[in-house]
């Protein structure tokens, strides 16, 4: 839905990231890939993928200081208690997310939707990235396809993605 207003805001953002981050390279998908929903949501297994910097407290946080970003991911088991999650990111205010990770990673809410049969189930594993990756090609060419393969292997029917 690019509009003149959004285009102008986008241009300002591109200028800002080029000034702030050496090697910043806005990377978009070449085409819009489209997979249709194949069954009712009430029968779907749903996965969460977030770029908000979510990880288990027992896992290392993402590398927040690397000027080139960090395209690695953390596997978050679907039965994780959200009190065992931490949210680390330096490019947005994580105060609310650390009070309640559901602000950025709504795992509790997803489980509730299973209990009322809105969705069929959640996948065994969900994924946490830290979205500060100035050169998007790093993500596109390395870890994004790995996570997509893992989601396929888990027989994921639907993915919900959240930013920070």
């Amino acid at each position, binding site marked *: 839905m690019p509009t003149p207003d959004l285009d102008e805001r986008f241009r300002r953002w591109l200028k800002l990231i080029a000034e702030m981050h050496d090697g910043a390279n806005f990377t978009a998908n070449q085409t819009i890939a489209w997979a249709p929903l194949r069954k009712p949501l009430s029968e779907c297994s749903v996965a969460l993928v977030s770029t908000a910097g979510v990880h288990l407290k027992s896992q290392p946080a993402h590398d927040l200081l690397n000027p080139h970003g960090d395209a690695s991911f953390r596997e978050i088991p679907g039965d994780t208690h959200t009190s065992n999650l931490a949210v680390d990111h330096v490019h947005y205010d994580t*105060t609310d997310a650390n009070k309640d990770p559901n602000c950025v990673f709504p795992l509790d809410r997803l489980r509730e939707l299973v209990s009322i049969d809105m969705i069929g189930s959640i996948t065994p594993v969900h994924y946490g990235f830290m*979205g500060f990756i100035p050169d998007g090609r790093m993500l*596109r060419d390395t870890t994004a396809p790995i996570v997509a393969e893992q989601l396929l292997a888990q027989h994921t029917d639907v993915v919900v*993605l959240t930013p920070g």
Partner: protein
Amino acid sequence: MCHQSVGLLQGAIEDHGIPSISITVRPEITAHANVSRACYLRFPTGNPVGEPNKPEQQRLILTAVLEQFTEIKEPGTIVELPFRWRRM
């Protein structure tokens, strides 16, 4: 930049044949990311699913997002959801 990363992950996931939807609070970035389906909330960064410890609000948002799977028919659609940020 989180939104650029969401876009690339969403592209890879759809490329693998799995339908997906993302939440965006920065539609100017998402509009250029070439993603299949997205929901725009006029919320601050850090709160794409709402306020902390407001499970009812978060559940309504997540439900509205999931319902868009049956509403969005056109690749590249970004739908604005009718939630307002009201925290004082």
